[in-house]
């Protein structure tokens, strides 16, 4: 028994076509794949909406200012990131 339909490679390759496991289940695999894709959008959309709603009401000016400051003084990628540093 083999999931790919071949238990040995003692075959003429000219006669060989599909060699993936579970041949015959392609339609089912497609349905599962589409559910995975749509489900991902659903989860991401819900999570992003919650994040944005929370972030809108943060109101913690000090924390946000600190974050912005870190951006300015943080990375120095390729030695050029200071080019817009505030005075």
């Amino acid at each position, binding site marked *: 028994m083999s999931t790919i339909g071949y238990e040995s490679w003692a075959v003429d390759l000219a006669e060989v076509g599909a*060699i993936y496991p579970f041949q015959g289940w392609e339609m089912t695999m497609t349905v599962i794949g589409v559910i995975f894709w749509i489900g991902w959008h659903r989860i991401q*959309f819900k999570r992003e909406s919650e994040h944005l709603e929370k972030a809108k009401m943060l109101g913690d000016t000090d924390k946000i200012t600190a974050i*912005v400051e870190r951006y300015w003084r943080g990375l120095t990628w390729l030695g050029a990131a200071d080019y817009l540093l505030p005075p």
Partner: protein
Amino acid sequence: MDGNLNALTTVFTEFYYWVTVVFMFLIHVGFCMYEVGASRRRNHMHTLMKNIMIIPLVTVTFFFFGWWIYWAFPDFPFFGGLNHEMGDANLPWSETMATNLSDRITGVFWAAFLLFSWTAASIVSGSVIERIRSSALWVHAVLIGSVFWIIDAAWGWHYAGWMVKYLGYHDAYASGVIHAIAGGYALGVIMVLGPRLGKFAPDGTPRDIPPHNPWLLTIGIFLIYTGFWGFYAACNVPVISPEVIGGEITGTTWTATNIYLAPTSLSAITFNFLMSLSGGLMAAYVVSKGDAFWTFSGGLAGIITASAGNDLYHPIQAMLVGAVGVVIVYKLHYWVEKRFKLDDAVGAVAVHGYSGVIGLIIAGFVLWGAPSSPFEGYATVSPLGQTAGAVIMFFVLGFLPGWGVSKIQAAMGVLRIPEEVELQGLDYAEHHAYEDAKADIIAADKAYLAQK
């Protein structure tokens, strides 16, 4: 694969497309670097994530339905029904859409088209940075990457597409089928999305929002240039015999062809790629008075403008077409920005959309009367056919869907981020775990040092 020549041709073609895919990956890397370089620091992570996730979302949807559209839609819906014979072989449950020793080409050919899809979606992504919701952009990415561009490819970038047959549409290296449609789509989205806060002064004067990191931008665009070599090669069939083409070509000379199976050579497109790049860079430098952003983008715009006819142009024609296109694009960008108050953050509408449209129309004049296909009965290239094609690409399949879907998203309140979040930056809003982790570790380090 019976026979040595057949086996060699198959394996060479398989490897050829595979290499183009690897090269084209650099286009996406370049787009990511360009977008991050152009965005402000409070939006880096969001900007990067927005573009990276285009890769899986467009890939899976292009597997599920995009590739089928290409093969099923060449005549649909105006000049015939769906082509089930070709379409069915490219459905996601087809045996050839998988590990299959009797078909060594479908996977690499699918991937070459897929990388074009990423590019189309990534073009839209750049113009909307710093204010669009990721969820909204990713819906647009799937639509442009796995639906609309591939419909236009079936119509105008397929040896049997109706636009090729009846309009003589000629677009060898995708001025219209990738760039015009993506630019038109981006224009539709940004018209509804609106500009970034502060982009326009109260009197309507546009403000420049300079890239935070010009080096990142430079490396990004050079990676895009590099990836374009793969893009160009992927638009060709590397080697094919007249017998296999089955058209009107006589004799037994094998050749490379464009996507319409009409003859060209890799050497020809190498000449023209480099000359149109050069024409674009030189014209952009002059017209922008040495502005770095526009000069680099101008090289790309030069290539895009000449791409429709770069399989046949003389290199000097390619250079001049690229140069003329860039001057028009530059002027048009600033006129549209000022007149309509549109904020195209990376100039994508101009560099891709306007260049694509202009390139198609110019090709109609320069290649007037040239055969669009090796098959009998097809219309020849003409200014009218190319202009109609440009309208279909930019407006019908690009602008209208982008604008319409954005209108729906805006009405549902799911297109744009809240103003408060835009001011504080998207990285904190959507990637606060990253920010909080940074804050925590900095606090911990400080506390440790204080104890010493």
